[in-house]
């Protein structure tokens, strides 16, 4: 596609359930990022992929959060045993990320997660 897409756009779940959020980056982009944006807050970095590997997972809030990327393309962010504090907009971004590039990030529209 022409841009970064994310699904679902909205997700309402009950506390304790697991959720999976999906990100389709721009074709050919090697770098992929996940961020969390809580109401009135800035961008909280979660994890960064370069290809299929994640050199930086430092932002994942707890071991309930995990992410994977397959084929250097689609990524899924999984939150297990969701808690109310997980409610936020989860943003995905991709960039060309090649050496010498300027790493402009292109953002998806986000997934709004509400944990009841």
């Amino acid at each position, binding site marked *: 596609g022409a841009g970064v897409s994310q699904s679902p756009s909205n997700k309402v779940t009950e506390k304790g359930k697991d959720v999976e959020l999906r990100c389709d980056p721009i074709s050919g982009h090697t*770098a992929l*990022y996940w*961020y969390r944006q809580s109401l009135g807050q*800035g*961008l909280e*970095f979660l994890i*960064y992929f*370069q290809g299929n590997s994640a050199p*930086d997972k430092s932002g994942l809030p707890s071991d309930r959060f995990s992410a994977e990327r397959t084929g250097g393309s689609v990524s899924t962010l999984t939150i297990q045993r969701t808690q109310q504090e997980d409610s936020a907009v989860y*943003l995905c*971004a991709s*960039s060309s*990320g*090649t*050496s*010498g*590039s*300027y*790493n*402009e*990030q*292109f*953002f*998806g*529209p*986000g997934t709004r997660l509400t944990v009841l």
Partner: protein
Amino acid sequence: AQSVTQLDSQVPVFEEAPVELRCNYSSSVSVYLFWYVQYPNQGLQLLLKYLSGSTLVKGINGFEAEFNKSQTSFHLRKPSVHISDTAEYFCAVSRPGFKTIFGAGTRLFVKA
């Protein structure tokens, strides 16, 4: 390690007044600098970027920013704001092969 500081969390301004949103960064090597804008209920989009060359960078919607290496700053300016400029603005820094670091954001309120 790189870091970005946006000095103002909120900036209220009247319509048609000038505005400056401040951003300072720290890095021991050359970096690329960006401003992103997030309009209410929308995703982030690139406003402008500095890669190299001229230190004055012009972006969309009449915004510009000036790279000041000695002061390690990349402040965003607009000479006359509109109600439609109300949004959150994020400064960011990156270099090839490394993740982009975002500032905490500055919420610009334009009042009539």
